């Protein structure tokens, strides 16, 4: 530990939440997964719901989320996190249940489960990390990869005629009557992180109302998969992903 100024007489204004385990995270330097994990755990800590929360980890870089998140967790098969979360929530309707998935997991192999979970309006929070690539398996094209993006399976850039178009799955789920709250956030600046935190807070507050699914897309980075430094990656994300995946709310509950 290192600190230039002395901390005597100072008070802690930010520290690791107890809901985050001590295990150092395996993510690459600068990877957005870590930030989202932390913010999620901060909210659970601050809301005091650690003992009533069950999370579902996906297959993807965040497959080990359960090593870091200090809540009961299940690790789902690739793409099925929302089905697993459905199973949990249906038998434990009073618990807080969330799923956490990448773009390959949620928007490729898991498309059917994603659409139907939201369409049923399962009273869960779905967190969707869109980094426009398959991080874990070594940087292959994701459904959300942008046109022209070079990945290990689009070495000459994604072309719509060969590989289809970037899939805006969040826009699709927004259409579904089961969606209660849908928002798209990011974690590349302190301000963005604060907004994401509010969105997660709101989602957990909505959950006991049983009004439907809360769905949060986080437009994120993959420095390794994109072959960039974290700073470059965030800049690339702002420049190339934000126009396609604009940050902001897509559906907010009607005041009543």
């Amino acid at each position, binding site marked *: 530990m290192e600190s230039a100024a002395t901390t005597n007489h100072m008070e802690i204004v930010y520290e690791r939440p107890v809901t985050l385990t001590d295990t150092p995270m*395996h*993510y*690459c330097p600068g990877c957005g997964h870590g930030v989202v994990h932390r913010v999620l755990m901060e909210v659970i800590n601050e809301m005091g719901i650690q003992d009533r929360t069950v999370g579902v980890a996906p297959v993807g*870089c965040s*497959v080990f989320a359960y090593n870091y998140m200090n809540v009961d967790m299940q690790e789902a098969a690739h793409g099925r996190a929302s089905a697993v979360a459905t199973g949990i929530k249906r038998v434990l309707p009073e618990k807080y249940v969330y799923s956490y998935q990448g773009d390959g997991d949620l928007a490729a192999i898991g498309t059917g489960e994603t659409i139907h979970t939201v369409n049923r309006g399962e009273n869960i929070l779905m967190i969707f990390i869109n980094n426009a690539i398959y*991080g*874990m*398996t*070594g940087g292959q094209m994701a459904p959300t990869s942008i046109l022209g993006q070079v990945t290990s399976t689009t070495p000459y850039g994604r072309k719509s005629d060969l590989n289809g178009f970037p899939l805006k799955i969040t826009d699709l789920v927004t259409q579904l009557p089961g969606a209660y709250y849908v928002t798209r956030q990011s974690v590349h600046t302190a301000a963005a992180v604060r907004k994401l935190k509010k969105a997660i807070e709101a989602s957990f507050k909505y959950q006991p109302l049983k009004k439907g699914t809360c769905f949060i897309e986080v437009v994120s980075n993959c420095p*390794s998969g994109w072959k960039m430094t974290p700073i470059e990656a965030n800049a690339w994300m702002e420049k190339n992903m934000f126009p396609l995946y604009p940050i902001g709310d897509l559906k907010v509950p009607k005041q009543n």
Partner: protein
Amino acid sequence: MKTAHEIIIAGFGGQGVLSMGQIIAYAAMKEGKEVSWMPSYGPEMRGGTANCIVIVSEEKINSPIVSTFDSAIILNQPSLEKFADHVKPGGLILFEESSIINPPSRTDVEKLPVAALEEAQKLNKRQVANMILLGAFLERRPLVAPENVLKALKEVLPERHHHLLPLNEQALLRGKQIALELAHESVL
């Protein structure tokens, strides 16, 4: 040299451990030898440690996975701890000097510490440390001819990095020199 030579090369990911092995295998194949290169392919994510087993043989290779080695080229401390005891008596442990805090204590093997990182800095390219180690290794265990190593390098390096070939050649040579210098003081 007996008919098969079994090598372990181990270090952190990104240190060029795997390509070192590939270069040896490729050069040996060009010389008509049988070769196998077996990486420990890591978890489905970045980082961590990396190693590969390279076998060069006059005869057909059966198991590409072996648990004792004729030579070990070691680039970090965890790898040394993992593999030092698996080198056959009389074998070679070559290691990057600055990366190893506790050198091997065995006395029944040849130990060759090479300050590859330091030397690479001198060449203004940390990335060629592995070539320095390779040069040193081939000086002690001349499994393949230097010209074939250069050819292999050309094949293994992506085209866009071909301008680095001379630097790599220099590094190989520097490694050879170091090994020669050390030979005099090396302890069995």
